[in-house]
Each structure stands twice: as structure tokens, then as C-alpha cells.
């Protein structure tokens, strides 16, 4: 199969990025090295090509009503130029995707979805639209028309500000605006991200991507900005315990189990999955998403089994794990059976290649970013 390329493909090659097949996209897993890039983002700033993410637009008089039927969060609670993280669930309460909705107005929304779920989501949106009583809205998959670049880190604001007259410090976290970059390039500038650091996600027309990318590197590199690949993107989100679809989230896990109760607004009149989630809550949840740190030497990985501290009983499974570049220890995220009563500080073991290694359940995020001054 022909791999898809973003508008920044030639930039990645020029920078010596190691290109890999990531869900059908040819993207850099790293440039200089995962640890180096990760630490650059925590200390100064990191630049990420996230153009593989999907963009679905919903427009029309009934757009808000329809979107609010699709998502578990409440899009009516936010203002124009505000963004909201939410899950999209199936009728059984399982998570179809986790997405960010950008509210341009009550009649115009941009929904940014996981790359690997774009087709599935769009099909689900269309199918749901058919059954929805109000019809005054359109759905379009705009994914091929956008370049999305994330600049993240304590110096992200300072660097991006050099390329735009938009007052970036006026954009609060999870708000966005539209404006020009390099005087002529139209962009959505959102104070969102997936690293835990302050920063922005910038959406432009597909063909404007390279100009923005090159300019950011040029003004940012003297301030410590480094291009970051998918490897660092994963370790940065993992240190924050941000869930990743296919690891912590899937279509048989409900958002409450995934520790995402805060994006489920059960007081909302109706939305897909509401009845199932309510029932699951009443019946009592069976598993809980926790963070753990290895005490023994070893690195937890997705799929490894978690046992009680005395190694006798299997109580869960690792969903993501790595060696944390910021903390220099092995960390993991796991689903643990509720009835094993997982609490912060309790000891568990992780089975790695047939041996059970001691670990401790810890509070999360694993890493707390330093406050930015802009």
C-alpha cells in the first residue's frame, strides 16, 4: 500500500528524520533521538508535524445540536473560539474516538480526530446524521486540506509570536483564534497540545505547511527549538498519562473507566452512549486506569500482565509503558481490576518475559511541567 505523506515530507527528509509507517502515514519517529527531542520540548520547545490528524467540519443551523448528540462532553457550555476535549461513544458506551472540538460559532465546528480513526469517525458521523431528526447541517472530511503543526514547550509562545501579529498571550489554554502567520498565511492558532507543556497547534492550508515549518525552525532553533518525531510525542504524552487511542481507549472501554468522567456530561439531555454509561456507573465499574512506576529494573510495555504485590493473582494489564526521559525511570499505565482495591502507594508486580517485577502505583501525571511565563 502506498503510504500517505504530509505536506512536510520533504522537510522531514532534509532534517534526517527516520521515516516509518505509522498507521499508513510516512512520518518521522525521530530526528536526533527520542530522549534528546523529548528533553528539548520540556526545556525549550519542540516542533511536531501532526498533519496526519483528521479534520471533520460540521456546519449549519443544526450543527451544534448534532455535535452535542455525538459527543459525551457538552459543546453548548463553551464559547465561540473555545476548544473542548471529548470522547465520541457508541451505543454501548465504548469509545469510538477521543477528539478536540473547536467551536467557531454555534453553526460551525471543526472536530480534530485521531489519524487512524478518521475514516471510521467520518462514517460514524454520517450514519448518525441519517438517523438524526434535524437535517440542517453538512459534514465534510477536510483532512487532506489541512497541515497541522504543533509547537510545544515553555518557549513555544515566544517563538510563534515572532511570526504573527496575533497577540498570543491573549489566547488562554484551550481557546483559539484565526489570524495570519508570516503576514499572509491564514491559520487557526489554538492553545492546545498533547505534551503537557504550554504551546500551540497551528492549522493552515495543506500547501502552506512547509513555509510555516521552515520559519518556525529558523526563528526557534536559536532558542532551543527542536523538531520532534512520533517517539517523543508518545513519551511526552505518557509522562502526562494522557490516553492514546488503541492503548488506553478502545470501543469496548467506556470513558468513566478510562478516567475521563470529566468529559462525560450525564446531565445533558441525550447523547449516544448515555444510557449504557449510566448503567455501567450504576452496576459499578470493574476496572480503573492507574499509573505505576517500576521499582525493580524493567520496562513495562502494552499487553504485559499486572499481578498483586505477592505475585499470586493477575489483576490487570499494561496499556502503555516506557522509560521516562524526564524522570529517568520506567513508567506505565494499566487497567487494574477495581476489586483489587488499587491505591496510590500500593505495590503490584508486572510480568516481563516470564518474571514478575515489583512496581508501585503512583499519582499522576508522572511528570509536572514547569509553569511557563508567557
Amino acid at each position, binding site marked *: 500500500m502506498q503510504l500517505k505523506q504530509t505536506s512536510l515530507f520533504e522537510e522531514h527528509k532534509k532534517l534526517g528524520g*527516520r521515516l516509518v509507517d505509522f498507521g499508513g502515514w510516512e512520518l518521522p*519517529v*525521530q530526528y536526533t*533521538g*527520542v*530522549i*534528546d527531542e523529548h528533553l528539548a520540548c520540556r526545556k525549550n520547545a519542540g516542533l511536531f508535524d501532526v498533519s496526519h490528524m483528521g479534520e471533520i467540519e460540521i456546519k449549519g443551523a443544526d450543527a451544534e445540536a448534532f455535535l452535542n448528540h455525538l459527543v459525551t462532553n457538552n459543546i453548548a457550555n463553551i464559547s465561540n473560539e473555545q476548544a473542548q476535549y471529548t470522547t465520541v461513544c457508541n451505543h454501548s458506551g465504548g469509545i469510538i474516538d477521543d477528539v478536540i472540538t473547536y467551536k467557531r460559532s454555534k453553526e460551525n465546528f471543526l472536530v480534530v480526530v485521531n489519524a487512524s480513526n478518521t475514516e471510521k469517525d467520518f462514517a460514524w458521523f454520517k450514519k448518525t446524521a441519517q438517523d438524526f431528526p434535524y437535517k440542517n447541517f453538512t459534514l465534510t472530511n477536510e483532512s487532506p486540506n489541512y497541515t497541522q503543526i504543533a509547537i510545544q514547550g515553555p518557549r513555544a509562545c515566544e517563538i510563534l509570536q515572532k511570526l504573527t501579529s496575533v497577540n498570543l498571550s491573549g489566547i488562554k489554554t484551550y481557546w483559539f483564534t484565526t489570524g495570519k502567520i508570516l503576514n499572509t498565511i491564514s491559520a487557526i492558532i489554538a492553545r492546545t497540545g498533547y505534551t503537557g507543556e504550554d504551546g500551540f497547534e497551528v492549522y493552515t492550508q495543506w500547501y502552506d505547511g512547509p513555509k510555516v515549518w521552515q520559519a518556525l525552525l529558523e526563528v526557534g532553533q536559536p532558542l532551543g527549538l527542536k523538531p520532534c518525531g512520533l*517517539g517523543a510525542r*508518545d*513519551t511526552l504524552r505518557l509522562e502526562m498519562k494522557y490516553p492514546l487511542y488503541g492503548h488506553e481507549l478502545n470501543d469496548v472501554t467506556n470513558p468513566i473507566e478510562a478516567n475521563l468522567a470529566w468529559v462525560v456530561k450525564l446531565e445533558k439531555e441525550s447523547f449516544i452512549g448515555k444510557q449504557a454509561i449510566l448503567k455501567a456507573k450504576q452496576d459499578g465499574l470493574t476496572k480503573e486506569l492507574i499509573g505505576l512506576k517500576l521499582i525493580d*529494573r*524493567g*520496562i513495562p*510495555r502494552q499487553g504485559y500482565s499486572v499481578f498483586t504485590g505477592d505475585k499470586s493473582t493477575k489483576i490487570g494489564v499494561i496499556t502503555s509503558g*516506557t*522509560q521516562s*526521559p524526564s524522570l529517568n525511570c*520506567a513508567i506505565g499505565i494499566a487497567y487494574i481490576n477495581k476489586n483489587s482495591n488499587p491505591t496510590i502507594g500500593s505495590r503490584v508486580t508486572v510480568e516481563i*518475559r516470564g518474571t514478575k517485577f515489583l512496581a508501585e502505583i503512583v499519582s499522576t501525571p508522572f511528570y509536572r511541567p514547569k509553569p511557563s511565563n508567557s
Partner: protein
Amino acid sequence: MQYPKELKYTKEHEWAKINEKNVTIGITDHAQSALGDIVFVELPPMGKTFKQGETFGVVESIKAVSDLYSPVTGKVTKINETVIKEPSQLNKDPHKSAWLIEMEATDIQTFQNLLNSDDYTHYVEKLK
């Protein structure tokens, strides 16, 4: 990259430095580069025996877990504790100071299955 003439190689990217029955074993520069930042090394206990091609340990980078395959048949006689404590040494000096284990070969016939430096260089070139 130069692959030293005095070493023998496997298609799984280990190297072996043979001194009569005494064999020093490590991973190649190609292996460390493909893995990226190496953050974990697991090596066997002293005295354990392995046949050629058997898994004797594991190296892990941030992203990947990779088995180590014994280039020869024999018994483990020495372990490099430094690379266990500082796995990143494998990224810096894979062909020399960051060796992994030493083995005493019990079947020197198995040496014949290893690649020389030229053959391994060609093999790696073809992988690119």
C-alpha cells in the same frame, strides 16, 4: 560505517570477537542505530549455556524491545556490568567498550556460520 575486520557477525546484528575458545559478544553499530536510544539491557547469569541462535538477553530502546541471539554455542563466562548500569553506552561504542558478554565456546564448528566484515557490510547495505 566500518565493521571491524577482526569481528564476525550474525544476520541478527550481533558481533563476535573470537580468541580461540573465548568469544566476546556485542551488538553492531547498525543495531544500535536502528534501535535508537537504548535504555535497558538484560543479560544472562554467569554459567548459563546457549546454543547458536538462542536468545540470551534483551535490549530495549524507548520504543522497542529487541532479543539478543547468541552467535555461538557455549557458556557465559563474563558479563559487562557497565552496560547494564549505563545502557546508553551501547549507542556510543557498540563495537568495543560496550560489549555485552563473554562466552566459552563448546562447539567451534558453529563459528563457520558467522559472516565476515565484508559480507555483513553488504548485508546491511541491502537492508537500507
